[in-house]
């Protein structure tokens, strides 16, 4: 197992290197000048070039690249061109909010999606099945900025159960949880909609397998067939999907954070992009790629826990 983890981690290194290079290039290919973004429309060319020099943007692009690479490999992502704070500091402040939101959405997605998927599979083509499929389609069709606003109108404006502005007071757990509910549900809906579909089809496939028929014939109780024999085998593709969709979830979390005005990586990256904060953008993209590499690793590892065959 440890050998497997090490091999996987080593395999991630070229990926990260390629990502670093790509990130550096992509950020610079985007037109728009950080100096103009910072100084605005009235700045004279002299002022702009002074700022470019201050930001180190007047140097040869190769120098900038190797410096970035060297720093990044040592774990130094530099300082933001706009806020003058370390990129790490900003990420460290935003990351927990995004992780909490994503995990909460995943939890909602799995807690709602898996039982609903199993239920739908057991009532194949029945009313419950049709209804589940319809609801999941609805969940996938509504972008989070629509469902988020809808939840805000109902639960914040009409019922006054939650505030519209969702940045939690630092250190206040109850406040944090309170303000997490609506964004987590918004994002959870998307997740649940994916999970339902995969669980349903995977469950249907497993239930058609020979060993299930054998178990039935031997008189194994229905409950045991569904949960022990059926679900445990049906879960492997579900885990893969959950792992793969973390990327989509992170993308949707950007929008969710904007709608609910929650702090998090999403808000930071959008602001870095509009302000052409190169160092910040680079740092954020590195972190996103790193997160996806890690999530894929965890997904691979969790197969081992669910499926004994992978362990060997």
């Amino acid at each position: 197992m440890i050998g497997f983890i090490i091999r996987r981690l080593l395999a991630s290194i070229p990926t990260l290197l390629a990502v670093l290079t790509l990130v550096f290039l992509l950020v610079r290919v985007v037109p728009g000048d950080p100096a103009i973004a910072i100084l605005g429309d009235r700045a004279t060319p002299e002022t702009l070039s002074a700022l470019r020099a201050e930001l180190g943007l007047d140097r040869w692009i190769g120098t900038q690249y190797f410096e970035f690479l060297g720093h990044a490999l040592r774990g130094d992502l530099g300082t933001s061109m706009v806020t003058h704070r370390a990129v790490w500091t900003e990420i460290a402040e935003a990351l927990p909010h995004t992780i909490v939101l994503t995990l909460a959405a995943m939890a909602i997605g799995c807690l709602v999606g898996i039982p609903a998927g199993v239920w739908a599979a057991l009532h194949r083509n029945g009313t419950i099945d049709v209804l589940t499929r319809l609801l999941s389609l609805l969940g996938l069709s509504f972008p989070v900025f629509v469902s988020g606003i809808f939840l805000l109108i109902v639960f914040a404006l009409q019922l006054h159960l939650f505030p519209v502005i969702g940045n939690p007071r630092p250190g206040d757990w109850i406040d944090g949880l309170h303000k997490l509910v609506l964004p987590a549900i918004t994002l959870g809906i998307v997740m649940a909609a994916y999970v339902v579909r995969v669980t349903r089809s995977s469950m249907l496939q497993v239930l058609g397998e020979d060993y299930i028929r054998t178990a039935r014939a031997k008189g194994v109780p229905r409950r045991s067939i569904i949960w022990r024999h059926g679900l445990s085998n049906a879960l492997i593709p579900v885990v893969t999907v959950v792992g793969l969709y973390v990327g989509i979830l992170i993308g949707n979390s950007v929008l969710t954070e904007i709608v609910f005005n929650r702090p998090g990586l999403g808000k930071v990256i959008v602001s870095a992009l509009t302000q052409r904060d190169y160092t910040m953008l680079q740092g954020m993209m590195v972190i996103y790629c790193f997160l996806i590499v890690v999530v894929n690793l965890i997904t691979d590892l969790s197969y081992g826990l669910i499926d004994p065959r992978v362990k060997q």
Partner: protein
Amino acid sequence: MTLRITLSAALTAATLVTIPASAAPKTDLKVGMAAQDVGQLDPHRAVSTIDRTVVAWIYNGLVRFKPGTMDPKQIEPDLAEKWESSSDKLDWTFHLRHGVKFHGDFGELTADDVVFSLKRASDAKTSAFSADFAAFKTIEATDPYTVHIVLARQVPSLLGLVTNYSGGYIVSRKAVEKYGADFTRNPVGTGPFAFVSDTPNQSLELAAFGGYFRGKPKLEHVSYRYIPSDSSRDLAFQNGEIDLIYGKQDQAWINRIRALPNSVVDVFEPGELANLSLNITAKPLDDLRVRQAIAYAVNRPELVKWQGADTARSGQSVIPAGYLGSSNDVGLVATDVAKAKALLKDAGYPDGVTIKIIHTQLPQMLGSMQVVQAQLRKAGINLDIQVVDHATFHQQIRKDLSPIVYYAAARFPVADIYLTQFFHSASIVGKPTAVTNFSHCDVADKEIDAAKTETDTEKQVALWVEAQKKIVAAVCAVPLAEALQIWAHRTDLDYGYELKASLSLGPLLTEATHFK
């Protein structure tokens, strides 16, 4: 428990929680700003509406516009108690107020800070407004409370340059030296509100400055929140979570917010004039007849109608209305599609012409441009609009990549600045002295230059009017519409003055601003 009981119990609980807050007089102001984040809190680099609005609460100038106005005639003492100038207006002496304190431990304001600030504002390395100070020859402190400024040549409004606006803000020398490049996130001024903290992408917190020279502000705390999503910001305002909100220059928005209980929509100056700058050196616009065709094809009343009666008014010249030297009789033509077509035919384009332009994706600007596009199409002028994001737009128009540039702006309310930046040949984009002359206009240089040093106000105004007429005749630009500033506040908030105008583009918060 049924759902209904649960909900009503929750509702009661929520109501109970909010009651104690309203029992005590409210002193916390929450502002909702359309922004991802604040950019620059260094006043000499603060250019966006987001930055300007908040910088105005932190800093003072030597003089200031009477709160709520932007009338140069109503400029009043701020950090300077009084001032005098020589008869040729080249020699100015400002006498500072005694006992003015900077925020924090940065001590008393002295002439040294003023000299430092004005020199900093006029240095291109440290200021986005350095061009405004080109005429400054010397700035020196003759004693701790006296500042002496000598100009190399006359300027249309020296007081305008040292107001609480752009380069006129006075910073603490000690603070700038202490924080260096980080000063932009550690602002230290003398204004009614002092910086407390800044949480990136969330909010900026300010506290009343107890040592403010006009007395302790009535508001104790101001939270400037960045809420980029328009709908979330509106919902938060509607839900009473914010008291003051950045609005939209859009009639539907104004109507909707006006209909809410407990809310007032603020509509105030300055109007931002949108001009269509036509690059007179680029094909096919180098032909005057093509430019005239565009001028005849544009329908200003229709644009105003589209933007909304409360926020928009028709452009009347190539500079905004109400500026010293502006005129509403500069020879603008009324819409005449037939004439536009005839001119186009004369110019050798009987089947119409297509012009490729670059424009920003900002919804309001894009919408207005699409209206213009539809109007021009009627005359056979097809605008092929390439939409890019706002930062890209700004970069590319400065590289002359768009022969037609839609640009909306407000400047200091004196004709000179607008004319110089948009229509003087020195300001042509691409030149080392470039500002925002996208049209490559050079037809009124003589008048603009002469007006700068003209001491007789009447003659000066006449020169400015002549310049506008020449620019309009050459069709360097076609004025479209002016959009006023739109904010909204809850009825219990009292600014402490009547808000008719604000050069910082957001409501000014003063020591008198309070909740009723």
